[in-house]
């Protein structure tokens, strides 16, 4: 692993608190993931690719905006790996980059309808921008 990848990996591990070495690659997290069909990389792949230092591929993948943070993979992983926390750490690294915001406030008015709860907007802002 080159030093740039080493550094990115270190940042993800530190921010997420996830120990990727605990993963036994059973795939249960991906098997239960309700966003499986929408994700290019699935939760077990996040864990494995972080171990390998393949962080940029993950940062550039729309998968990081498809995870629902539903914590199903967290509670159902038999090894307590908590893959959702790894996905979140990668997503934060992507949206914290200069011009890394996925959602811009000026896009929001067109996406609203009269029933849309505030909760949806504040959550999307938290997930999709910094």
């Amino acid at each position, binding site marked *: 692993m080159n030093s740039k990848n080493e550094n990115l990996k270190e940042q993800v591990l530190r921010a997420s608190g996830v120990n990727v070495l605990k993963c036994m690659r059973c795939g249960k997290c991906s098997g239960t993931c309700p966003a499986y069909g929408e994700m290019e990389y699935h939760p077990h792949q996040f864990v494995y690719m972080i171990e390998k230092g393949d962080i940029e591929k993950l940062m550039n993948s729309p998968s990081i905006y498809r995870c629902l943070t539903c*914590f199903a993979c*967290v509670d159902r992983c038999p090894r307590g790996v908590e893959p959702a926390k790894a996905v*979140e750490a990668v997503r934060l690294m992507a949206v914290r980059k200069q011009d890394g915001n996925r959602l811009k406030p000026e896009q929001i008015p067109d996406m609203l309808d009269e029933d849309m*709860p*505030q*909760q*949806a907007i*504040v*959550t999307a802002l938290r997930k999709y921008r910094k």
Partner: protein
Amino acid sequence: MKNFTYYPGCTLRTKAKELDRCARVCAEILGINLEEPADWQCCGGAYTTAKDEIATKLSAVRVLNSAKEAGNPLITVCSACHNVIKQTNYDISHDDEMCGKVNRYLGLSENYSGETIVYHYLEMLRDVIGFENLAKQVKKPLKGVKIAPYYGCLLLRPKKALAMDDPENPSIMENFIKAIGGTPVVYAQRNECCGAYTIFEDKNQAVERSAKIAESAREMGADMIITACPLCMYNLKKNSGCDIPVRYFTEVLAEALGVEEVGNEQ
């Protein structure tokens, strides 16, 4: 009267007024005094699990601390607020580094380190009132109504922080439904996510998710779905294509307790 500090959150003040109004009216009937702090802020809707995020956790810590100062447990109704506040409270009591950073930032007169006990409104009904006592106060039981409780993701997970029920085989809403005289419907998708905020990334993701949930409830014969979450309510009503009525749990509670004019709308 038992006192609780009450955190409504942003949506209960706007699009989910009935969720809030019914919660307050029913608390009064049940002898629970809800005290709303003057200066609460929006919880942000989602808990940021990353350890290097501090600012996004502060509004939850502020309301936890105002409950501590008032000497009350804290009560929440919205699933998302409940999730954010309980995860914040869990991490602040288990992660010394985060606790230190938060306290250095807030500069409170006394450090906050997770002292407040947090209840979801349903937990208050189960653990403070007791479902048996609740059943005794019911004036208009929902006899014969088959009700599918929708937990979604945020009410129960992650289990170690929320510590509310078994996320894989929950019973709190089923027992609530029995207490108000209805018949609970157990169905496969009761604890899977509705698609949540992905409406801002690709609406189809929420359409597919919420349709699956409604279909699963329908297959098991539900007449009605109940939820505690305004975003679940939105996705089930707007995006699932489902014609089963979706109601807030506090609305059916209010009806059962004999409250007049409980709205069907958000």
